[in-house]
């Protein structure tokens, strides 16, 4: 890269930075408002129908929070309003991000693993490095590693679309717009349950993501997601 100064590398384009933070804010609001909605109906079912008294596959009351207690903590009026507001922010932001990057060859280079990276030995090496919480050397710091690439791909192209589609499958209007979509999930309640499961997966991703940021150096990482430049630790860059 030609934008590298002595100890700095240019890591994130400005559209990635803007879209990242909008996604982050949307995620927090969507998660929180989703919890506020869920607390006022804290049971999950499988199939087409489900209601209080119907056999549930998950009950919050089994985990120590009674229906009444959960209900008192939740607020679905606030929750529904903000859930739909930030769903739109999230979707529009996502469309802009993908639309922007679909034309950039660098995007594909950045996010798709190369054949070499998909080798078993590379996976092994990356796993071991992650387990030891070791940061990467300069040459590798310019690129995402293979585990990073795969998890970003899964989040961007699997979990995010799944959240949107399983959200649609819960909406009454879709019983007319596309009942096939609801049937595809095996019913409205299954769609709701999988929406929650996917929420848990995304939350786990965010937790791991934040841990990784800490390991790699929180200040440097967060700064690079704001100003775009990433400082390569001196001793490592001297080695390289």
């Amino acid at each position, binding site marked *: 890269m030609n934008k590298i100064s002595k100890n700095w590398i240019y890591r994130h384009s400005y559209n990635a930075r803007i879209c990242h933070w909008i996604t982050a804010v949307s995620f927090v609001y969507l998660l929180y408002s989703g919890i506020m909605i869920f607390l006022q*109906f804290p049971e999950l079912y499988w199939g087409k129908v489900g209601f209080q008294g119907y056999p549930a596959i998950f009950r919050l009351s089994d985990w120590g929070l009674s229906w009444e207690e959960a209900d008192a903590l939740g607020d679905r009026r606030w929750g529904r309003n903000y859930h739909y*507001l930030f769903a*739109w922010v999230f979707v529009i932001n996502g469309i802009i991000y993908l639309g922007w990057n679909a034309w950039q060859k660098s995007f594909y280079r950045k996010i798709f693993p190369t054949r070499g990276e998909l080798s078993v030995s590379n996976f092994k090496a990356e796993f071991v490095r992650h387990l030891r919480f070791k940061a990467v050397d300069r040459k590798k710091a310019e690129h995402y590693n293979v585990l990073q690439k795969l998890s970003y791909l899964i989040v961007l192209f699997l979990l995010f679309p799944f959240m949107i589609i399983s959200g649609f499958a819960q909406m*009454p209007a879709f019983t*007319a*717009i596309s*009942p096939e979509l609801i049937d595809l999930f095996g019913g409205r309640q299954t769609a*709701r349950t999988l929406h929650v499961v996917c929420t848990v997966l995304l939350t786990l991703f965010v937790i791991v993501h934040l841990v990784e940021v800490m390991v790699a150096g929180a200040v440097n990482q967060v700064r690079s997601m704001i100003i775009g430049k990433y400082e390569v630790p001196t001793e490592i860059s001297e080695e390289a």
Partner: protein
Amino acid sequence: MKKKEEKRKEATLTRRKLLTRTGALSGILLTGCDTQFYRPPIIRDGLMGVADILTMASQRLLLSEQQLVQEHSVSEITKDFPVWNQSNPEDEEYQRLRAGGYREWRLPVTGMVNQPVSLSLEELKRIPRRTQTTMHICEQGWSAIAQWTGAPLLSVLEAAGGVKNGARYIVIDAYGGWYEGYDMFDVVHPQTILAYGMNGKDLPLGNGAPVRLRVERHCGYKQIKFIKSIQVVSSMEGFGRGTGGLNSDYGFHWYAGA
């Protein structure tokens, strides 16, 4: 492929058909592209209002052919269909009507109609009925399937001589103080019915006897129970806070398709 197309045609009330069917509603533009159907009666401030319009406009565009909602088989009907919200209005008049087996119940259809009428339950039942087995989706998260029988709302308005030019909403009042407004896009939908039967029997008390609304493309809170009267109006101003219903007065979405 062809079969699918035919099926779709069957399930779809084309716009032309809709317009001939709704001769009595000639004053109203009913195309899904009409922007009056993209917005709630009051647009909320800021981004919340923008999101409301995005949700409503995108769904109304996708619904512009007035497709029917999915109907389920009778075997899928839910036993113990939940009773939610008010289950027996604390209202003197209602209790008197209930004690009399609803024989004295009347449904006034007034406002911007050509011949205001007041229908008895018997008269309502004489209107060619529609029976549909559909899924009730509550905004809280639950869903259940039931079979509903009733008079299409559109036929009821036709019985009142049709609506006048400029009519935009219908307001349904219920015993117990609830009220809810609907725009003509929902009024003309063939599955929008005033239901007096549930699962082959009279509508039970807890589910809104003697008559409730089924407006299938919306969440449960739009399916108003214990119906008292219908008014056709040009604006929701003057009803509650003017947002178009008691639920939206409380801060829930007026458009409940999502």
